[in-house]
């Protein structure tokens, strides 16, 4: 085969070479002949090596020999396995679980001062509980597309599609198009799979502003610039199926995002990435339950536009860039959301309602939040980390209260609690290999107005099967 290529090359050269070059033909021919001889010599050596190897194998163990041969033949690069299995996708499985205790009941978890996101944002359940088991199936579809499915088997015995998308392989020019359900490229942590997070749960800002994370149904177009500095621009159009948007029947996109990331190295020891992202949605009747000042249930809902900005950065350091022994990771994100539209207050489901009919008025809010976390691997396998979370209530302009339509500030204990939630989290984990991790996490969580929730948990994360590559 090599010879054929060489001959073809030789022909091509002879054909295309302008006249003066032909004079060197003799010399070239000589070179080629010598290369051919070299190749022959090496091929003989390869043969010799293989013979030696076969000898060693036969000495190694007679009983296993034939089976081993059959299997090693499969493993030989360049000779793919045959049969129906040959095109099986890569499959991996993530197993996780927690044992937790907390001073406040996770069932009553809320972030005072912020509209509930309806996502899975509560801390780990008390006692032992299974986390989501994730099944990941991925393969190239054809020369043009790659496909991936992540199905989460929830501890409630349900199956959720976390991600299911196709991605183009051959667009070129740095472009990649993705379609289906996928983790949005906004922010930094959003695209990191949960089993690879450095803490068991999401930062408060992700819980309050994205309901844990943004994974919408839609399309994403990304472009990487042909520069030495990493520059990536992306845009997504989506259905807006979940908080901060609401799913609805509409012949248009319900959410769109824009994001830009830049990154590079500082010397050999440090790598960094920073980004700016924007998410814009227009929720309709985004409803949640609250209680009025007497403690009776009311329904509230918001319709309008929601716009979120995220600034993120991550910096990874390891001595000489060798992360095997020690390494440090610093990560932080800042969220800023403004919403404007109308709020509806409805206590008509009460037996003896104060107002009885839905009350509707203008509503606008500007709220923000951030977190900063550092994780240090101080020796192989062992890491500890600290995270500080903070949300700022900001300004909320509630027309129902301001215009004296009836309900007062005390009737909006969730939306109008001028509270600045904060949380301190400590983490300590041990990873015997890259496929297993056991973590101890302690947190003091002031998400609820006037209450401190002290949490402690042990978590395990195991991954089986195909070796996945992890994002930076």
């Amino acid at each position: 085969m090599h010879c054929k290529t060489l001959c073809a090359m030789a022909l091509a050269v002879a054909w295309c070479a302008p006249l003066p070059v032909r004079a060197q033909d003799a010399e070239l021919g000589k070179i080629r002949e010598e290369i051919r001889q070299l190749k022959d010599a090496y091929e003989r050596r390869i043969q010799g090596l293989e013979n030696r190897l076969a000898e060693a194998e036969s000495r190694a163990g007679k009983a296993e020999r034939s089976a081993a041969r059959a299997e090693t033949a499969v493993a030989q690069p360049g000779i793919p396995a045959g049969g129906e299995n040959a095109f099986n996708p890569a499959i991996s499985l993530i197993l996780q679980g927690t044992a937790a205790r907390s001073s406040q009941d996770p069932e009553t978890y809320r972030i005072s001062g912020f509209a509930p996101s309806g996502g899975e944002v509560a801390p780990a359940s008390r006692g032992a509980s299974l986390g989501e088991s994730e099944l990941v199936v991925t393969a190239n579809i054809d020369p043009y597309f790659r496909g991936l499915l992540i199905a989460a088997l929830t501890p409630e015995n349900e199956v959720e599609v976390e991600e299911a998308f196709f991605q183009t392989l051959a667009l070129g020019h740095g472009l990649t198009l993705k379609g289906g359900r996928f983790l949005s490229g906004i922010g930094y942590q959003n695209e990191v799979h949960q089993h690879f997070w450095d803490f068991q749960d999401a930062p408060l800002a992700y819980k309050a502003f994205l309901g844990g994370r943004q994974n919408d149904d839609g399309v994403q177009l990304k472009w990487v610039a042909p520069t030495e500095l990493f520059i990536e621009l992306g845009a997504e159009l989506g259905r807006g199926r979940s908080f901060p948007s609401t799913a609805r029947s509409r012949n248009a996109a319900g959410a769109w995002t824009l994001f830009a990331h830049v990154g590079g190295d500082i010397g050999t020891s440090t790598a960094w990435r920073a980004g700016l992202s924007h998410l814009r949605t227009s929720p309709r009747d985004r409803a949640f339950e609250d209680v009025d000042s007497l403690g009776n249930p009311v329904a509230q809902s918001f319709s309008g536009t929601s716009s979120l900005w995220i600034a993120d950065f991550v910096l990874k350091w390891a001595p000489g860039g060798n992360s095997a022994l020690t390494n440090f990771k610093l990560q932080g994100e800042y969220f800023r959301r403004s919403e404007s539209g109308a709020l509806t207050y409805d206590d008509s489901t009460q037996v003896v309602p104060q107002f009885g009919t839905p009350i509707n008025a203008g509503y606008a809010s500007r709220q923000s939040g951030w977190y900063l976390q550092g994780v240090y691997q101080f020796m192989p396998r062992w890491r500890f980390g600290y995270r500080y979370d903070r949300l700022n209530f900001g300004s909320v302009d509630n027309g129902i209260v301001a215009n004296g339509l009836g309900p007062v500030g005390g009737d909006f204990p969730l939306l109008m609690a001028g509270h600045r939630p904060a949380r301190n989290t400590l983490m300590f984990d041990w990873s015997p290999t890259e496929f297993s991790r056991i973590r101890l996490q302690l947190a003091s969580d002031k998400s609820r107005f006037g209450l401190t929730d002290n949490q402690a948990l042990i978590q395990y994360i195991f991954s089986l099967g195909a070796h996945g590559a992890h994002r930076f």
Partner: protein
Amino acid sequence: MKRLLSIAQLALLAAAFPAAAALNVFACTPEWGALATELGGDRVSVYTATTALQDPHRIEARPSLIARARSADLVVCTGAELEIGWLPLVQAQSGNPKIRVGQPGYFEAAGHVPLLERPARIDRSMGDVHPGGNPHVHLDPHNIARIALALGERLAKLDPGETAYYSRRAKIFLDRWREATARWERDAAPLKGASLVVYHRNLTYLIHWLGMREAGSLEPKPGLPPTTAHLSELLASLRQNRARAIVRSAYNDPRAAEWLAERAAIPSIQVPFTVGGSDKAKDLFGLFDDTLARLLAVAQ
């Protein structure tokens, strides 16, 4: 900021008007970067993704790698799953179809040499084993020669107007390499039969080439850090069968090796492992010169 912008502009310009260097080569590890430079000369511009001081098993798909892969015409890697933890992501995220697996722009060195230690059975309980065999192929100069032949052909295929140029460089390199190999084999004669304790099984091809023996590894299983229990076992077995030296690569933690060396009373040495792993390992020739010199120093 101004500087960033001008860097970006320059890079954009560079992309818009391909420079004289015809091929952008992205080498996963220093040895392949050095080989591409030998074979491609000034027709290639080589970017090496990792250094000799970095454990090749623990590289991350950092942004700079994605940016470099974006403009690469050829990715030269080891293969045999050595880069499985980061390269697939870099390939996917760069949006560069030229360097996908199976394309001419993707070159796997391990595909051109016979692999040793192909496991008959694979299971993660055996540690970080590579199903295709041991991927650290570059410390046998005959492997380098085989890979050089194949890589030379690949360069010529990607830069078809310059076939003669690459053929000539391949010949010059291989002539020098053949001479050097003969010299190394002559000089290394005293090493034959010597038994070595390694850190990770990344010197297998070197040991095989020179007819040495591996008396054990500091890692209890491939990829797992040394443990006291395992080192004690190793120490006991070394008291029965003495080894010539404990050999570790430039990127390995020296502590375990020194612990064992002191108790077993055998020397512990560091070899460059790849180009850049020592002051003298400036290129592939220097790599082998220095590796043999360090081994011979403890063999006498």
